């Protein structure tokens, strides 16, 4: 297994820059996710690491070796495609053995590795079945097995759960994570689904327009987003935004939304008078009838333990609050809003960037 390092990676297709000067390191044994909306450059980045696409400029290092211009076949990386391209006329065993036969691996060694991969994936009982009759989940396991037998230095997975139906996706999510932990392998996967990313990855690189917006553990992206884009992309429902006009000085512990002071984490960075945005996760918004920030309930979605209440403030900002389901909230109700001050973000509206505050110093994820 190996560390993957990407330096100033750039890729243009004609006039369009798909990936712009990306630099990041994927530590050995990391379960790393390239996340982002379609067209953000995540798949292009993955394909460049695999050698299926050549960069316009920049370098790719695999375990310290510069592989930027090596063909895919010499990189010792396994690539698992979204549509698991198996040989339909072959048995599971022959599908698994195929990459090794192509490499001229001795028969006994092939047999050992195939059986080992089948054991890891818990498909030993399927070895002599034809792949054409297998359900989606098992086909995906065979596709992964074909990567495992090669004992590569890293695994690259392009939307590994994209071709599965919803329920199986949740099962395979757990399974992929467990597989990663058993193999202790460097794995990089691409997805557009933040829930998949949040539940599987050690590290997420969230991309937008060919650039990495933020890179870090899932909890960090969730708790301390660098930008409104990250705050909005991660979380379901996403972070709510309350626009306001004002200024922030370093050391400030509150912002003024109209006439109302709202406590926030101590500012480390100031802003001249500008259009700013207060950001709050649904679980950090509370309904309290006496709070000065007034809002009207638009909708309440009952979820059992909790409910998601959609509210609109007097100046037109829409917020979502996750509160206990016994809190009374009916469409049309007037209420007040309060927040968990130490969890709030403040953004500059024009750039979307978060203003640095005590929030960003919180060491506990």
């Amino acid at each position, binding site marked *: 297994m190996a560390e993957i390092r990407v330096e100033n990676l750039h890729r243009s297709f004609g006039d369009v820059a798909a990936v712009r000067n990306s630099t990041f390191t994927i530590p050995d044994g990391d379960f790393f996710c390239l996340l982002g909306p*379609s067209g953000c450059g995540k798949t292009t980045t993955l394909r460049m690491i695999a050698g299926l696409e050549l960069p316009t400029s920049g370098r790719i290092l695999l375990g310290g070796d510069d592989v930027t211009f090596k063909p895919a076949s010499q990189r010792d990386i396994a690539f698992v495609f979204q549509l698991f391209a198996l040989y339909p006329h072959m048995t599971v065993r022959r599908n698994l053995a195929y990459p090794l036969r192509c490499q001229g691996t001795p028969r006994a060694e092939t047999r050992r590795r195939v059986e080992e991969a089948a054991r890891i994936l818990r498909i030993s009982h399927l070895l002599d079945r034809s792949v054409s009759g297998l359900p989606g989940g098992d086909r995906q396991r065979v596709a992964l097995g074909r990567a495992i037998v090669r004992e590569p230095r890293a695994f690259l997975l392009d939307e590994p759960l994209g071709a599965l*139906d*919803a329920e199986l996706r949740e099962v395979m999510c757990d399974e992929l994570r467990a597989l990663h932990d058993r193999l202790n392998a460097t794995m990089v996967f691409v997805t557009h*689904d933040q829930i998949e990313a949040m539940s599987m990855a050690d590290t997420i690189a969230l991309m937008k327009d060919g650039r990495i917006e933020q890179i870090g553990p899932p909890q960090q992206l969730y708790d301390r987003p660098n930008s409104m884009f990250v705050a909005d992309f991660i979380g379901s429902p996403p972070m709510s935004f309350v626009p306001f006009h004002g200024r922030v000085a370093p050391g400030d512990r509150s912002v003024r939304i109209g006439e109302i002071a709202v406590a926030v984490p101590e500012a480390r960075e100031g802003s001249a008078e500008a259009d700013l945005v207060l950001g709050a*996760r649904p*679980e950090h918004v509370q309904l309290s009838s006496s709070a000065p920030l007034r809002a009207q309930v638009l909708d309440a979605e009952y979820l*059992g*333990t909790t409910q998601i209440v959609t509210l609109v403030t007097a100046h037109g900002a829409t917020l979502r609050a996750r509160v206990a389901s016994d809190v009374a909230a009916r469409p049309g109700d007037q209420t007040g809003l309060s927040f968990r001050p130490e969890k709030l973000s403040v953004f500059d509206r024009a750039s979307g960037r978060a203003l640095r505050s005590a929030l960003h110093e919180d060491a506990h994820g």
Partner: protein
Amino acid sequence: MAEIVLDAVSKQFGRTPAVRDLDLRVADGELVVLLGPTGAGKTTTLRLVAGLEQPDAGRVRIADRDVTAEAPAVRDVAFVFQQYSLYPHLSVYDNLAFPLRAPARRMPEPDIDARVQDIARLLHIEDKLTKRATQLSGGQMQRVAIGRALVRRPAIYLMDEPLSSLDAKLRAELRIELKRIQRELGATILYVTHDQTEAMTLASRIGVLDEGRLVQLGSPREIYQDPVNVHVAARLGTPTVNLVPRGVFADVPAPPQTATIGVRTEHVRIKKSANGKSTGRVRWIEHLGDQCHLHVTVAGTDVVTLGDPDIGLAVGDAVDIEMLAPLFFDARGERVRA
């Protein structure tokens, strides 16, 4: 619009029963969600209503008409599938107009145009009409697929996991949208999902299916608060309801046939034990934003509670547990009422 009635419907595939003696009535303007794991018979039920499958026994009625022997095309139902199947070479407009241009309908083009424009407004895709289907994002494509069902104004709508191919955010958005559209149109919808959030938020009533049987039918609140058995209790709620052997809480008064006690995380109260008497020990604290889940070991069983981060407990602390509104189940998993 119209109601759907399933009357003692059964269906087997080979020797495997898929749907067993199912009775269900979806009232006019109601959205009933069938919820259950894979193989519970949800999709088969939907396909039986659509006429894509024939029942072995029982009757299917739509709008007071027995349609059991009718072909799918004459049943006046619209079906939305999990994977949106649009015509890639057609524009959004033509995709929406397609069902109306069927020769059998003989609908004049101005009427078609009026309907397409109406539906596009409802779905907020007016500005996308001239685009090709393939130029749309996933969420927009699924909106068009739903639009294609709506545009026909059928008697009833059947939807098979229509949102599950979308990512979480789009799913949440379209969920709210779908609910709004359903209310506005007063549409009768039978909807299949395995996703409890979807079921809880969309449904007028939820029907929980298990191995082809309808085990409970009721409003989301009824199903969550008053489950008929262990399966239903465990199917709804995150985190999952705590299910603890009766013996672990010997001092909780319970009916004699009780084998398992179920208690929701929000109904477990814990406090640091005083006077040396304790019921459990904190094993692990899981921080989740504003709340935390405390995993407490009680006589070898894990009980998960919902707590405030400021609760002042640490791993290893001895705690007392109090249960509010416990649910009792017998050895077969059936609910026992006190």
